[in-house]
């Protein structure tokens, strides 16, 4: 069959697969897919906060005069903003008794009101008792509180400082750090999408093999057309999904994030080019991995066989992802260049580069290189698919199964 006829047949199959997928209920789930990690994340943060609250460390008992305790509490309050999300050690005031040693022992052994440690001796000669060492977080906190309280006692602040703040967006240092994040997000997005879609196209093929539709297709059109049709249908489906996610995401960011889309770190190549590159690199990555998956999937006849076969490929994918992620933050390093040259990790490495460096020529070079590999892998995977999908083609016997002559 001539090439235009193969392309026409591939289009017929792609159109069927595309409409069947996009108009199905599962596509809605697919679209909602990115929300699940988000919801899960919020849930985990909530649970984490609750766990933190439940597991709050007991306070340190301060045996001191009320004045000294007030100074310590003021010092603690002044230090709280620099602690960020990590809670500072809590303090509890205890009036001094006649027998200090007995009071200390009683406080430390109390089960109804447990304490981490006991501080006595005042600000002049502070003495911490408890199951703590000098390197413990509690001991370090108490040291800071005492230092600050002494300073406050000597030089009370006149008035609270009012800092005038001017927001600057184009500073190189923070920008570079945030671009690394953009690169990493782009990489994860590409990796997860590619893996998800390659698995989806594989399940679809297995479904067709088990429902015997594949024989109807194989009798009517060349196997190459089936292979290309299936591959490109899923690509079109995923690009539709990405387009909808992008629009949805942009609307969300514009409405929810302060400063809108401008608040996000601008990639080095700029947003429009970055988006275009994400789409192109995703297509390349999907064609490379999807074709490999289809070639492998054609040899399996049940979903279980697919799982067994796809497991090592998925693991290899993870290794490639790890390899490409080493390039993030150091786009000109040897590792980054190696990841960009190796065809299967190249799209992942290059999208990180697009976030970090503004040059476009390496992308043109990489895309050309990836296109060569896409053509090569499509050809090889297509041949494997053709040979395996209906046990067609010349039979090939592996060396360990060769019959003696």
């Amino acid at each position: 069959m001539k090439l235009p006829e193969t392309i026409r047949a591939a289009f017929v199959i792609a159109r069927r697969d595309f409409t069947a997928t996009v108009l199905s209920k599962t596509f809605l789930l697919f679209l909602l897919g990115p929300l699940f990690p988000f919801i899960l994340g919020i849930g985990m943060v909530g649970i984490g906060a609750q766990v933190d609250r439940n597991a709050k460390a007991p306070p340190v008992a301060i045996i001191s005069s009320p004045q000294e305790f007030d100074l310590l509490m003021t010092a603690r309050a002044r230090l709280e903003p620099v602690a960020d999300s990590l809670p500072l050690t809590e303090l509890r005031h205890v009036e001094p008794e006649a027998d200090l040693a007995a009071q200390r022992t009683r406080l430390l052994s109390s089960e109804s009101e447990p304490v981490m440690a006991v501080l006595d001796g005042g600000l002049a000669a502070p003495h911490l008792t408890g199951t703590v060492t000098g390197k413990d977080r509690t001991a370090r906190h108490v040291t800071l509180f005492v230092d600050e309280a002494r300073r406050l006692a000597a030089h009370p602040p006149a008035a609270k400082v009012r800092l005038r703040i001017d927001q600057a967006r184009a500073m190189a240092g923070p920008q570079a750090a945030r671009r690394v994040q953009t690169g990493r997000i782009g990489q994860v997005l590409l990796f997860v999408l590619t893996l998800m879609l390659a698995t989806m196209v594989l399940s679809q093929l297995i479904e067709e093999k088990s429902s015997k539709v594949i024989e109807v297709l194989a009798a009517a059109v060349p196997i190459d057309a089936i292979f290309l049709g299936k591959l490109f249908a899923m690509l079109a489906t995923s690009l539709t999904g990405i387009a909808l996610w992008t629009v949805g995401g942009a609307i969300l960011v514009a409405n929810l994030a302060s400063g809108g889309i401008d608040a996000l770190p601008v990639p080095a190549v700029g947003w429009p080019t970055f988006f275009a590159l994400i789409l192109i690199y995703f297509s390349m990555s999907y064609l490379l991995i999807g074709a490999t998956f289809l070639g492998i999937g054609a040899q399996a006849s049940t979903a279980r066989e697919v799982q067994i076969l796809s497991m090592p490929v998925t693991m290899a994918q993870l290794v490639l992802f790890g390899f490409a992620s080493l390039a993030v933050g150091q786009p000109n390093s040897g590792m980054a260049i190696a990841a960009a040259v190796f065809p299967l990790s190249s799209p992942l490495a290059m999208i990180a580069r697009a976030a970090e460096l503004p040059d476009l020529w390496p992308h043109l070079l990489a895309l050309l290189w990836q296109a060569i590999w896409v053509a090569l892998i499509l050809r090889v995977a297509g041949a494997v698919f053709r040979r395996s999908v209906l046990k067609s083609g010349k039979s090939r016997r592996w060396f360990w199964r060769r019959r003696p002559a």
Partner: protein
Amino acid sequence: MLRQAQHERNLECAAAEARDLVKEFDGKRAVDGVSLTVPEGSITGILGPNGAGKTTCLRMMLGIIDPTSGTRSLLGHDRPIEIAHQVGYLPEERGLYPAMPAVEALAFMGALRGLPLRESRRRAIELLRSRGHEDWARRPIRTLSKGMAQTVQLLGTIIHHPRLVVLDEPFAGLDAINQEKLEQLIRDLAEEGVTVIFSTHVIAHAERLCERIAIIAEGRSVFEGAVDEARGRLRPIVHLRTRAEDGPWRTALPQSAKQVGGEWRFELPPSGPEPLLKALIDGGAGIETLSIERPGLHDAFIAIAGEAAAREMGHVPAAEEAA
């Protein structure tokens, strides 16, 4: 007259041809040197028990799988896929997308065979309407019964007006009424000049429909030719009832004659019916009834493929049946 001449001319050229087809799967030979010629415009049946290699032969002829060795051509093309738009195929294991509405399934099958989608949809609606199934059009395949789905797939096989239709076990799973409808459809297709090849393990269908048959047993073709030629391999069978138990007339019966339930059965001697009749009368047989029956395809099949193959297809040899 003109139609008859056209028909005879068509029979001279082959719509499908296979020469020494061999197919091995993992070293096991499923088809072992099958040759077959299907004249254009004919109805040809491929007979054989399950596992004989019928489906594998059809798949090779259609180009779905490649033969390990041997050659095949379809409508004059060595690469069957090149002529796929002129061929219709109904596989043994029916396959349709369960969620697809019937009309879309038909349109898809037409588009696969080269029809523009719009034209394919138009024909799909027309096909369903012409057979009184317009109410199926919007129903997803999964909501149709097995017979309905099979009808949809069969219509999808002819939506593009093919020159050659290949049906693999088309009668399997159909009730008697739908089997009759299918037989009529096959006759209608042949009437329009379409070549029909179908595989079956029910000899009665082949006997009613086919001009030519190929018998495949254990991966080998054991007969290929006209139905009459297959029947002609057997001599007509004589059924005789006499009043006399014994007498000189018994010498007129061949040694192979068997008595089944008071009736003698034997092959008509090569000399024909007249000398036999004379010898029976002269020998005092007292003929009660005498009939000469032309052998059916069933008997021919047993004679050609062997009793074992017939048994595998669920056909009991006549003698056993009578007993």
